[in-house]
């Protein structure tokens, strides 16, 4: 018996799964660009970019629906099992997270309009920049881990989420200081707060994607587990 375990007996099944994965990656790339563009827009104040981000949000939504439908199709027609089943389930969950990230990117872009128009535009710019760069890196890392089915890369992303959370906490403290010093900046600070919050959420979603990578590869469901638990369970 000579066989290639990478290939299904049904070539069409192979093709279907491949399509789903590729579409998810395309969507991931799009969301990645959206986030990067939104964060750049805050710092550069480029309103054209803002409009572009808001416009492309629709595209992200459409991709989510299309991929989800494709997943349902495979579930119904092929009754996938084991790794195939985990793949379809993981993709279906990942696109949900990606769509939420897209929403967050859109929110950042909307807030960016007001942020750039205000006089206090220097507040927390450093934090926004570094956190933004960090979450984009996380998303890239999570998608790479998914593509390579690499658990340790996925665990790294989860670890990075911790750092982003810490940055978020310190940025909050900075904001509070501003607000206490100058009550006139409060409305602007709240705006910035929303932006920071959105970036932090994007980090959480990137972490969720990494958790799905762990599920995809090892079959263990690590959602709602602490970092140490995840590290412990992926060691086995």
């Amino acid at each position, binding site marked *: *018996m*000579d*066989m*290639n*375990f*990478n*290939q*299904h*007996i*049904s070539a069409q*099944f192979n093709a279907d799964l491949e399509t789903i994965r590729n579409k998810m990656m395309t969507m991931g790339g799009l969301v990645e660009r959206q986030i990067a563009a939104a964060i750049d827009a805050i710092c550069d104040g480029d309103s054209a970019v803002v409009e572009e981000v808001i416009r492309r949000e629709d595209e992200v939504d459409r991709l989510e629906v299309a991929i989800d439908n494709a997943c349902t199709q495979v579930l119904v027609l*092929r*009754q*996938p*099992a*084991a*790794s*195939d*089943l*985990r793949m379809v389930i993981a993709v279906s969950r990942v696109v949900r997270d990606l769509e939420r990230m897209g929403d967050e990117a859109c929110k950042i872009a909307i807030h960016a309009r007001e942020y750039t128009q205000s006089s206090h535009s220097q507040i927390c710019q450093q934090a926004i920049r570094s956190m933004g760069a960090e979450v984009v890196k996380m998303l890239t890392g999570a998608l790479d881990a998914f593509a390579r089915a690499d658990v340790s890369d996925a665990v790294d992303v989860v670890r990075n989420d911790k750092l982003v959370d810490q940055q978020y906490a310190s940025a909050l403290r900075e904001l509070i200081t501003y607000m206490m010093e100058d009550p006139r900046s409060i409305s602007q600070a709240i705006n910035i707060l929303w932006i920071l919050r959105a970036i932090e959420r994007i980090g959480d979603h990137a972490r969720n994607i990494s958790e799905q990578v762990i599920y995809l590869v*090892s*079959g*263990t469901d690590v959602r709602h587990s602490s970092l140490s638990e995840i590290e412990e369970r992926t060691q086995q």
Partner: protein
Amino acid sequence: MTILKNHDTKGVAFVDDAKLTARHVNVFYGDKQAIFDVSLDVGANEVIALIGPSGCGKSTFLRCLNRMNDTIDRCQVQGDILLDGEPIYDGSMDVVPLRARVGMVFQKPNPFPKSIYDNVAYGPRLHGLATTRVELDAIVEYSLQRAGLWNEVKDRLDAPGTGLSGGQQQRLCIARTIAVDPEVILMDEPCSALDPIATAKIEELIDELRENYTIAIVTHSMQQAARVSQRTAYFHMGQLVEVNPTEQMFTTPEHTLTEAYITGRFG
């Protein structure tokens, strides 16, 4: 591909409350070895599914459990198989009462060319389970009810069993097996000749029978194994590759071969 040599079975092959215990079972057809060192427990009141590609030895193993292989001349069974701790291949174990305790349902519905009543009554008559006609009637009715066939056939018990539809015939065969009050029921691809509705009925029946009986089922349909069993055992080329709880088997199998078979990469 992965070469299986002296490997250990992955997963959990042994349970605490074992009804049937197989240890180091080897089966030969003449010079050809069909089963290689299989050790497996079948727990009380559980449904265990045996899956694997054609010719993997799952049916052969199943047929060892009630010594059905005795009827094949060149078949030789080594190792220990115990029913409630008693070795069944021992000289002291008579095959007739053994088969009354470990019943079997076959791939193709095979009712006797007799009436529905006589089909079900055959086993009880054979073993003298009923002394009066009233008792026999009661056994027949109970068995047909357990098999979910009573309402369909109660008005025509004298009609030939072979005149029923495929699904009904298979339920008649199950009723016939139940009629001798076995402890274990072995099923060798019981639905492979049936349509989906009949299959669903049999699967429903298997689920109900689990309260009273221990069931080992060989199936080619992985969906069926997933639906009816609590544990699944995967056989490959005469070896027991993996045994695990069914839900684990179908989401995260441990062995590459199991994974490849379950996901339809060969088989």
